């Protein structure tokens, strides 16, 4: 590839300052929040949809792929350029373009941080409901691409339920609008792009739906001696017809990591806790809270904390939302899995997961959206130990198998990415996959956006990265300058 040519083309399209190509600069775009790696050949930071379109056209002309990147907090390797090429970062596309409080709609650029939407509309008594635990830092574009969920999605639905329309740049470099502020006729193309993990288009504008803040929210912390009791309580709650706004579970190992970070009062000696929130009109919330407490008592909760102060509540949630990061206190590396099982099967699958980790000799911390049956086992290990990654991946595969065998699926909210594409064949037939590929072809005949994701291929992300590193090591750091 004529590297200097594409770089100077990109520079003239979006300005010198916003095209990175020095090897050390590229290095920090080879990761996201996973353990995967892949080096880009250039990084661009456009400032408008037109600049996005121009970058896409240039890459296409030079026949290199484009991978979009928001904040790089993805948990399935989505923003990692598996096959090199251009990484297109949305951090400068961070304007809230319009807030229409009356119609409860906001129009934002893709690089806007999830929580910043809620902050901006707070004076109107509104908020944006999907709340991934990374919401303080992740972008709405990344949320759209991964169809992200969060603790409160149990009641309010995932990202896709809150996106009314999009502006996208196609693989041909055209700017197209999908959906809109009101219902539009024809196919729901917005729904197809949401969750497409950056493989169909680059999103340049998002129209989101806003909700009124609930009149009353009650937070409950239920403490159990055993994980099993906690997971039974979670499934009994849903089966009994209570629909909390959030129903989260954390096990002992997770609490051990979280407590020193935030001192939220998570009990260090308990087997597991459920962090539950019920919302609605005052009366309604109170009634639900009573039902929740009854179920927890029946399943021998050791203690139920209620009537928490706003500060307590904030700390409990900060602990829950910081849990993944806090695991770094217990282990140099961890592998986060993301599986879904029917809620009734939660207790049995969880038991299977602890067993499997024991057998393979790894510690595991479980912290997850129990209400959705969306599991996140985090397998702890030390990256520096030779051969360990393979063993961890093997264990991961076994855990995903457990989920699928329990009529579950291989991703709840983190996406398939490069990480889990080889498991796609477990849940989809050849025909299903062909149908999906044909859908992708309908968007573009080339594999220009985020290749190597979602669909199984023979080439792994890690290989590309180590090849690039070897190349740098050989020719020296200035090889690409």
């Amino acid at each position, binding site marked *: 590839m004529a590297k200097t040519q594409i770089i100077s083309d990109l520079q003239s399209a979006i300005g010198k300052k916003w095209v*990175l190509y020095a090897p*050390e600069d590229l*290095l920090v775009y080879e990761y996201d*929040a996973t353990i995967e790696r892949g080096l880009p050949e250039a990084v661009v930071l456009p400032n408008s949809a037109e600049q996005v379109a121009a970058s896409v056209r240039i890459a296409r002309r030079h026949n290199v792929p484009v991978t979009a990147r928001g904040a790089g907090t993805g948990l399935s390797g989505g923003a990692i350029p598996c096959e090199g090429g251009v990484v297109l970062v949305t951090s400068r596309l961070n304007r809230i373009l319009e807030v229409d409080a009356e119609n409860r709609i906001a129009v934002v650029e893709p690089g806007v*941080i999830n929580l910043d939407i809620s902050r901006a509309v707070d004076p109107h008594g509104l908020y944006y409901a999907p709340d991934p635990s990374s919401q*303080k830092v992740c972008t709405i574009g990344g949320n759209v691409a991964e169809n992200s969920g969060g603790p409160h999605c149990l009641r309010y639905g995932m990202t896709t339920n809150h996106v009314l329309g999009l502006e996208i740049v196609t693989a041909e470099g055209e700017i197209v609008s999908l959906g809109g502020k009101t219902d539009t006729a024809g196919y729901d193309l917005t729904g197809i792009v949401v969750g497409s993990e950056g493989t169909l288009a680059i999103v340049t504008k998002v129209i989101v739906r806003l909700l009124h803040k609930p009149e009353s929210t009650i937070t409950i912390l239920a403490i159990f001696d055993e994980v099993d009791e906690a997971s039974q309580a979670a499934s009994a709650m849903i089966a009994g017809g209570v629909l909390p706004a959030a129903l989260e579970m954390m096990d002992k190992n997770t609490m051990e990591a979280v407590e020193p970070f*935030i001192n939220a009062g998570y009990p260090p000696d308990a087997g597991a806790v459920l962090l539950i929130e019920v919302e609605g009109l005052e009366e309604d919330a109170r009634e639900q809270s009573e039902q929740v407490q009854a179920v927890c008592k029946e399943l021998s909760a050791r203690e139920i904390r209620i009537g928490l102060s706003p500060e307590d509540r904030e700390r409990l949630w900060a602990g829950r939302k910081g849990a*993944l*990061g806090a695991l770094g206190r217990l282990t*140099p590396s961890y592998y986060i899995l993301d599986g879904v099982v029917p809620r009734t099967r939660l207790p049995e699958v969880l038991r299977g997961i602890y067993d499997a980790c024991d057998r393979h000799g790894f510690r595991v911390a479980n912290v997850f959206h129990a209400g959705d049956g969306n599991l996140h086992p985090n397998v702890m290990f030390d990256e520096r130990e030779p051969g360990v990654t393979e063993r961890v991946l093997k264990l991961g595969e076994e855990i995903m198998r457990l989920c699928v065998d329990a009529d579950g699926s291989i991703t709840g909210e983190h996406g398939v990415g490069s990480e889990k594409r080889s498991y796609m064949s477990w849940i989809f037939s050849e025909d299903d996959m062909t149908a999906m590929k044909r859908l992708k072809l309908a968007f573009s005949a080339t594999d220009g956006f985020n290749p190597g994701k979602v669909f199984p291929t023979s080439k792994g992300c890690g290989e590309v990265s180590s090849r690039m590193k070897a190349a740098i090591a050989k020719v020296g750091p200035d090889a690409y300058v």
Partner: protein
Amino acid sequence: MPDTSPIPIVPSSSDLAQCVRCGLCLQSCPTYVQTGLETESPRGRLYLMKALAEGEIEPTANVIGHMDQCLQCRNCEAVCPSGVPFGRIMERTRAGILEGNSSPFSWRLRSLFLRHVIAQPKALSIFAAVFRLYGRTGLRTLVERIPGIGERALLAPTMEGRPFTKSGLLARPDGEVRQRVALLTGCIMPHAFGRVHRATVRVLARNGCEVEAPPDQVCCGALHAHNGDLNTAMDLARRNIDVFLGAGVDAVIVNSAGCGAAMKEYDELLAGDSEYRDAAKRFSTLVKDISEFLVDLPFKVPSGQVQATVTYQDSCHLAHAQRITSAPREILRSIASLTLVEMDRPDGCCGSAGVYSLTQPKMSIELLDEKMRAVSDTKASVIATSNPGCMSQLESGLRRHGAPGEVVHVVELLDRAYPDR
């Protein structure tokens, strides 16, 4: 894991392995928010520092540029759920670069200046006197008007009021002595903000403390450590430990957040020094920020009042390094007629950051402008803070924007609220 290498010029691999790249620190980093670049983010810098430590990359001008842009404000460290000791990792990385063959000329120059001027009381007095003259003769006003240089010059500290030159016994309380404390006089504070020391001493005495300033104390070494000159920082630390432990006081009071943070971490700095390790631990537990100390005491609620709308700027090294955010606010709230109005992101760096405003004026000014916008939204006429660097930077901000108002240390307001001082 304690790191016990004698001269820590490489971050330990366990410190580096602590970052799991979750990205939860990104929006707390002023330089990331300003640029949107991963290279200017905590996670990116940590990745580069790891690659440096492992010999995967060289300290090229490009890499050093990313380290230089870091404010060392440690906001990332305060929000990191994984407990990454960012400040320590950055100091050791800088130490490694400074000791190595490819250390940039500007770094060596800076470290010479810090060693031979800032850490030497005599040299510093001369330097301060020249600076004072520069301010008084109106030369400063002139220089600040020169296009191109003016913006930079604006960020230089002001040395105007009367310097603080006392040492030995400074004050005795009227009644019974509740505690005997020693004051760190420090390098910049006595020259630039002598009045803050005078207020500190008065407030301490009013609260039953006998206050002394041990004459042989030296600069705390914070600036040296931040710039990677750990050898000088360790030398200064040893001398201060001897002097202050020798004084046999109940507490060492610091009214400069940057110095306090560094002194509370002498135990980490000297972890590899078998002779001083234990003394350093003892010393570090004695160090107290003035606000922290007063609230713990507890201080006497003042009977006077201060008619003002005040906004509080968290000094990074108080909020993020020492994790003290409520004590200064508690003091302000205790003052009658004073209205405390919080600004947006009060704990976001103002761009002062030690010598940063002089070495990275562009970013420093961007952050300062942002800060002044947040301040002006509060309509406050007084900005209170906890560190001389922040005071000087915020004063520059007021001058730069032609805004009325006053910058003070928290303890000055408390002092004003005590009657007939």
